[in-house]
């Protein structure tokens, strides 16, 4: 698998949950965790669950995934034989592109980083891998 892989595959329901959580989180940035299988410590792209989490920072410019929500999601993942494979968060007024803060604080090089911009009338969801300070956009497919 190359660094540019995989393709993020979301169901329409998962996409709706992610987008909905971003609007529900306003005026703050919203965040949540993606669950799924990993292959050799890298997200496969298949997503088996999406878990909206509280933004413990309660800020319109930064987010921190609430620890208890992360713990709950980790337990669900473990029970299913999956992992936490990524995180989404919203940018309330800027592009759906990783900020310098996002790059600096990227928790796991094997994760997928989803950013939803609410800047325009329609939400924009894009996904990336972030590793060693480098950003590569990955394809997103809605299926099922």
């Amino acid at each position, binding site marked *: 698998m190359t660094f540019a892989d995989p393709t993020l595959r979301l169901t329409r329901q998962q996409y709706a949950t992610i987008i909905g959580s971003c609007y529900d989180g306003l005026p703050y940035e919203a965040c949540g965790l993606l669950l799924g299988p990993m292959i050799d410590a890298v997200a496969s792209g298949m997503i088996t669950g999406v878990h909206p989490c509280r933004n413990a920072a309660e800020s319109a410019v930064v987010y921190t*995934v609430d620890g208890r929500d992360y713990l709950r999601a980790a337990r669900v993942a473990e029970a299913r034989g999956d*992992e936490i494979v990524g995180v989404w968060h919203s940018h309330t007024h800027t592009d759906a592109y990783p900020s310098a803060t996002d790059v600096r604080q990227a*928790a796991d090089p094997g994760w997928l980083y989803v950013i939803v911009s609410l800047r325009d009338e329609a939400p924009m969801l894009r996904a990336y891998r972030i590793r060693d300070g480098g950003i590569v956009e990955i394809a997103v497919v809605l299926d099922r």
Partner: protein
Amino acid sequence: MAVEIKLPTVLRAQADGQSSVMIDGATVGEVFAKLIEQYPGLRGNLLDDGGGLHKFVNVYKDDDDIRYLDGLDTKLGDGDELTILPAVAGG
């Protein structure tokens, strides 16, 4: 006290790929010391330069964040489970 320590994916490479490790210890600090002795690569991820809990890691004893208990001095009992999770943040 035999305690199971669950590791997040980002730290498993430094623990021979294991998702969980069983360690004996009476406190979180004691268990971490033994964990680091076994897997020295974990030290920089778990502890800060002063030997305190790293600010970018959260540790739960069962359902409780140890920062709200006694930190690294939190006492452990047989069968307790420690879950280590990285802080996930950005902007």
